[in-house]
């Protein structure tokens, strides 16, 4: 059972754009595909969905090849759009029909998602005074509202596997929260989700496993909690009311950034941090903050991608 990608490979001419990517999801959850621009995330997704021919590798769903017949896939593409001059309801009904959803069922599902995504006013004609107001066309909607319609299209077939490419880009904070709540809802329903995003904080909120790609190669892969644990608590944040630069450096701690009397530092481990804390207390310094924590996904990403850049 589950979803797996094995040795996925693609090249254009002599340029390798996806270099033997492999990962698997044995149970429902969220898998994150992260990477710099041009790392090969979208190309990988397109190959997974059979939009692009693979130069190598396999994509399996429940032990067989993943196809439109074998897997009900919902996809929110990074490049989003709608037929500009057609009504939104027509477009949603069209997508539902293409996915084999009956008319009646499609109407029910559209009504549900329209309410859930607060998009009813764009889909159903209203009565304003004596005149009925025609339902809107796609080009009359804002980008965020168009995104809602596209998410509805991806969800209309009640997919088993949902692939979201940059789902939250371009949304205002209110709609970001709305989208997040829907993603949580889908996770709770036991769906398989693959997410690609540049917003590390968002990914961290949802994903259990991840792959970081850089220039077509996998630079880091695994369970997010375990990856973080493997790094240990090496990030230290210190804030005081006076300059601590000399004291921190004397303790052998590396200062990464400093703003005023706030310092973002890297320690070799908990022992070094404890040693620094003792020194500061012994000096009678009033500390506002002293926090030792695991690296964030953002920091891991920057570090991993940076390493590869240095190597190359």
């Amino acid at each position: 059972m589950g979803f797996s990608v094995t040795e996925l490979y693609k090249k254009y001419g002599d340029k390798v754009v996806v270099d033997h990517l492999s990962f698997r999801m044995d149970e429902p959850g969220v898998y994150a595909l992260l990477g710099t621009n041009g790392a090969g995330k979208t190309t990988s997704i397109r190959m997974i969905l059979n939009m692009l021919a693979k130069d190598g590798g396999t994509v399996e769903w429940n032990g067989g090849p993943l196809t439109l017949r074998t897997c009900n896939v919902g996809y929110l593409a990074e490049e989003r759009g709608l037929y500009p001059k057609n009504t939104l309801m027509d477009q949603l009904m069209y997508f539902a029909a293409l996915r084999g959803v009956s008319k009646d069922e499609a109407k029910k599902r559209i009504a549900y998602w329209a309410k859930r995504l607060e998009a009813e006013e764009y889909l159903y004609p209203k009565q304003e005074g004596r005149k009925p107001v025609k339902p809107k066309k796609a080009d009359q909607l804002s980008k965020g509202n168009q995104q809602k319609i596209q998410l509805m299209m991806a969800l209309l077939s009640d997919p088993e596997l949902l692939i979201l490419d940059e789902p939250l880009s371009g949304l205002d904070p209110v709609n970001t929260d709305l989208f997040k709540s829907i993603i949580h809802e889908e996770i709770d329903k036991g769906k398989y989700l693959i997410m690609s995003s540049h917003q590390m904080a968002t990914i961290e909120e949802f994903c259990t496993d991840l792959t970081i790609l850089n220039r077509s190669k996998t630079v880091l892969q695994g369970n997010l909690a375990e990856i973080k644990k493997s790094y240990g608590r090496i990030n230290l944040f210190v804030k005081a009311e006076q300059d601590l630069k000399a004291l921190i450096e004397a303790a052998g701690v590396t200062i990464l950034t400093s703003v005023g009397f706030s310092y973002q530092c890297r320690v070799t481990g908990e022992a070094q941090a404890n040693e620094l804390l003792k020194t500061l207390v012994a000096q009678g310094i009033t500390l506002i903050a002293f926090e030792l924590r695991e690296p964030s996904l953002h920091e891991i990403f920057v570090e991993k991608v940076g390493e590869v850049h240095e190597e190359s």
Partner: protein
Amino acid sequence: MKNPELRGIGTVFRYTVQQHYKTRSVIIFLVILFLLAVASMPVMLLLSGRQKEVTETQIASVYLRNETGYAFNPDAVHADARYAGVTIIETAEDDEALTQRVMNEETAAAAVLSTGTDKASVFRSAAAANKNTAASVGEQKQFTIRTYYGEDGSVTGADAETLNRVLEEALHQSLLESLDITEEQEITVNSAAVAQVAKVSEYQSGTEESNLDTHAAVNMAYSYLLLILCAMSIGYVTQSCMEEKVSKLVESLMVSVSPVALLAGKLLAVAMFIFLGFGLVGAGLCISYQIAGHLGGFSFLKPLLEEIMPFRLTALHFSGSTVVLLVICMLLAFAISMGLSGISGSCVSKTEDMQSASFLNMFFLMGGYLGGVFAPLAESDAVNLFCSLFPVTSPFCAFPNYTCGKIGLPVFLLALVIQAATAVLLVRMAGRVYKMMLLYRGSVPKPAQILRMLKEERAAAKAAAGKEAPYGKQ
């Protein structure tokens, strides 16, 4: 649907058609097209100045001045049941006196029969004389019949016009009688002679050859019809192919329907739109014909058709099955044009590139059209054979050549096979290019680039491990 690649064609077709006919401008265009077709023949009739013939006349007497120099037989007028009771009064009165008569008598009409010289015949005669031909055509007489009626009387314009036509026929009869010519003699002398040149083998096999005029006219008419049909579709197909790219919907659609099904559904919708347009024009012309018949008969059509179409249907290989073949040939040509438009449309990502992308199709259309128009002028069997079989000119030339007896049935059937194979090849290629180029953004690639990309795509598909084909096809 058994082939998963084709699943969803019906849905795409229905949606495309539905959206197309929801557009107000499309409906307005179709309505205008239909109304123009309906109005065409009655307008021609009105412009020709003819009116519907009356079934019962209000005319009691006709004052007739005969200036032709030939005896006029009034019985020829009385032979028409409507004018059996009309009194024909031959007179030598001048125009003014005749005018007074029709003004004063409520049921009277006046007619003047005169003669002159046909200027065209004088010209032909002079030309013949210059060439020192043995026989001079000679000057031909031209007869004129002018009929008058009173504006305040009970005689209507239609009544007077009907009388005029009856007088025209009666004058003709009178002339035959005056010259002591029977109707049979007249028909025999006026019968057209068709000049034919044939090889002994053609003569022995009984293969008829139509004359050059007919062949050229059939070729031109067919090529023109085909050119309009195909040219109309280019824009629609190109627009249709790039619609998803421009609206950035491609990726969302591709998880729901295969590119081949998407393209096929759209092409079918465009084909339906084009044929519906043609059907509406056809229906409009039928209605127009009925209206024209109701208003004043079809006599105005004959000279017009003779002028624009020097057809002699008897010289054509024309039968019921020819109509079926005509439809098949047009559909094949349309499919080839659609395939080419599909290929060029698939390569377009921006509206401004539409024009340059249509080059391939325009080349095919113009090549075929010019072949269709100029090939008959060569009067060469080899040219006719080549044009019938060469894929670019075959859709335009094979059918007219067969109909005019320029190629035999086996060659014609071979031409149909070639056209069908070309159509299948192009439509399949359009499907592959569409699939390959759906995610392509950039300027329109050259044909050589497209072929190279197709080759690479095929090699990649072969090289892919597992070999699982998209959309479940193994």
